């Protein structure tokens, strides 16, 4: 199952960055995000997978597709990047990936330290709002302010200016 999901993720990520139709690239990105949600289901983080499906696959991809439809024609093909640009980019990506994989394969990960306990939404909510140890009240407030600021900022930016 893991192999299936990872194959889907890798293949569709490559298609996302190389597809010449921009709308198809967005659809491939949607497949990548759904396969990632499948990985979270595989790891038994159900709430996280639900968030991934609704927010990423539902929200962000729809937003991207809307903006594609607003800014470009569907039949239009993207220009192919020149060889002068492709080769250094591929070199950077390949060298970086090879380095990371080498380090990961060499490092010996210790086994898990604790027993797995089932994560439910009640635990998540309680520790998001608690001040004590393993409490995330401050990041929660910060992220709320960030979301508010992003909302106001994007409304102001996209608003039509009265010149």
């Amino acid at each position, binding site marked *: 199952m893991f192999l299936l999901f990872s194959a889907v993720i890798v293949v569709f990520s490559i298609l996302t960055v190389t597809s010449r139709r921009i709308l198809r690239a967005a659809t491939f990105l949607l497949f990548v995000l759904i396969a990632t949600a499948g990985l979270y289901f595989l790891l038994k983080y159900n709430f996280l997978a639900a968030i991934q499906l609704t927010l990423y696959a539902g929200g962000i991809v729809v937003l991207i597709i809307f903006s594609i439809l607003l800014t470009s024609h569907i039949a239009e093909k993207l220009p192919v990047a020149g060889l002068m640009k492709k080769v250094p980019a591929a070199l950077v990506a390949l060298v970086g*990936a090879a380095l990371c994989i080498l380090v990961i394969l060499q490092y010996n990960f210790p086994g898990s330290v604790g027993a797995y306990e089932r994560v439910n939404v009640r635990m998540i909510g309680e520790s998001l709002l608690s001040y004590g140890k393993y409490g995330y009240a401050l990041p929660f407030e910060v992220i709320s302010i960030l979301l508010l600021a*992003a909302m106001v900022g994007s409304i102001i930016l996209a608003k039509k200016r009265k010149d």
Partner: protein
Amino acid sequence: MSWFLILSSVMFFIGVYGFLIRKNLITMLMSIELVLNSVCINFVAFNKILYPDHMEGMFFTIFIIAVAAAEASVAIAIIINIYRRIVNIDVEKMNEMKY
């Protein structure tokens, strides 16, 4: 464990490659989403496999998803604004900040 990390690093560098070769702003944004998503996979794998009794990785993933949503909305507002001024969203054609 290492399979998850290998998967996420491959995905990360595919995102970096896409970010470097693309000229269109929206496709660059999509590459950034790939990068963020690979980081999320990393956090979740570390949390589940090394520390299954804690929930840190999960909260970081939730916060990353929230930041990605905020970033996408602001970026798309900027893209639409740019498109309204110069009828194009290629990076190379943007050489003025204001006029």
